[in-house]
């Protein structure tokens, strides 16, 4: 209701979309599922001249795999991440993260690329990609560059995308043998944005953590890898975790209407520990 009218343009390719973005010179946005963009429009938070609809682009959707990676088209919908067989067997953390997004209605229409480009620091998929060490393929229609998730998400709703770039696909490393995963989230209600969420990957050998990737969402302007936690759990067994993981530093949480900064700080450790424990258990099952 009460949205200022804008121009709607449907494109057939990402190159066409990039060209349209160039033409609009910063006053246009790409719409795919629209599940983040249209609420912001309706709330009057965005003022656009044009919306460029990529939802009909044929070759940017779906999941394929090769040796060590899953390739996921940017227009792949959350529901597909949730139900895809490759993802279920090769990167179940991603499935768990997608299952935590909003309601079924949102997961039906919302796309991977849309969520990543929106870059809400509390959103599940940017966090999962950061933990997984995923890489995003960005295109401006003529050239393509690859940016790791950790360098893509810059701040609240800010990314490394240039004015005329779109995410084309995401490359996600498969979960290796001996690895386990954990995904934990606390929100005020089911389906709400996370207050804090934790995504963890662990490789275990002989009951000890030999490698780990730990990331948190909702505690900073972007998803954060926690190198200090990763070092501190190196060599730990599941029973040592409480002792090894102290208060988590280097966070910059905010106080907002859903939680205080202090509470987010507290939850960061609780959820990290829970995700670590889940990951250890799964790693041991997998070994």
């Amino acid at each position, binding site marked *: 209701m009460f*949205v200022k*009218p804008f121009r709607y343009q449907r494109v057939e390719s990402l190159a066409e979309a990039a060209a349209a973005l160039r033409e609009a010179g910063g006053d246009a946005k790409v719409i795919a599922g*629209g599940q983040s963009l249209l609420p912001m429009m*309706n709330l009057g938070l965005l003022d656009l*001249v044009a919306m460029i609809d990529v939802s009909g682009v044929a070759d940017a959707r779906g999941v394929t795999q090769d040796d060590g990676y899953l390739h996921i088209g940017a227009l792949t919908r959350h529901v597909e991440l949730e139900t895809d067989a490759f993802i279920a067997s090769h990167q179940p953390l991603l499935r768990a993260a997608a299952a935590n997004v909003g309601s079924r*209605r*949102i997961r039906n*229409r919302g796309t991977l690329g849309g969520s990543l480009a929106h870059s809400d620091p509390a959103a599940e998929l940017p966090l999962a990609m950061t933990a997984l060490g995923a890489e995003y393929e960005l295109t401006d229609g003529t050239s393509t560059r690859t940016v790791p998730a950790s360098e893509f998400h810059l701040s609240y709703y800010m990314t490394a995308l240039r004015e005329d770039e779109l995410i084309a696909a995401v490359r996600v490393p498969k979960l290796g043998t001996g690895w386990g995963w954990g995904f934990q989230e606390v929100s005020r209600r089911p389906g709400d944005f996370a207050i804090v969420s934790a995504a963890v990957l662990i490789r275990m050998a002989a009951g000890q953590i030999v490698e780990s990737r730990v990331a948190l969402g909702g505690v900073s302007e972007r998803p954060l890898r926690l190198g200090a936690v990763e070092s501190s759990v190196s060599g730990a067994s599941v029973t040592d975790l409480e002792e090894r993981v102290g208060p988590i530093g280097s966070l910059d949480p905010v106080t907002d209407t859903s939680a205080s900064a202090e509470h987010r700080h507290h939850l960061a450790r609780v959820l990290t520990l829970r995700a670590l424990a889940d990951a250890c258990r799964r790693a041991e099952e997998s070994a």
Partner: protein
Amino acid sequence: MNPSATTDLAVTMSVNGRPVTRVAGGHMTLLRWLRDEAGVLDPKYGCGEGVCGACTVLVDGEPASACIVLAAQCEGTEITTAAGLTGPAGELNPLQEAFHRRHGAQCGFCTPGMLMCATAMLADGRERTRDEIREELHGNLCRCTGYQPIVDAIEDAQGAAR
């Protein structure tokens, strides 16, 4: 009438089994298109954020928040709203009957959206527990009933469908 830089475009959908074509601004949400252009009034505006579920319709069988979908993106789709469940003489389908029997509507404003959420739930034929029904309903808000009669109705309807 419409003053600004929009693109009027013709969009055709099948709405409750009836082909509908309207020329309207490309910025129109599906909800406004249905309500203001096509005269389909049972999907309701409740929040405009995709949170409350009062505007839930089925787009090609899958539930969507009509308030955060552009009508232009629904070209050629089949739209089902709660009124589409109702027979030509106002007959209620088995799910609607269950809502009626179980007192699933008080003020009734969330009801059309609830019915579409439930329709999508019943479509896969899987029998759900009460907790699973509640899980699927969590994106549809009701402020009157406390949800229990709605869960009762869906439980009844899936039992009858079996």
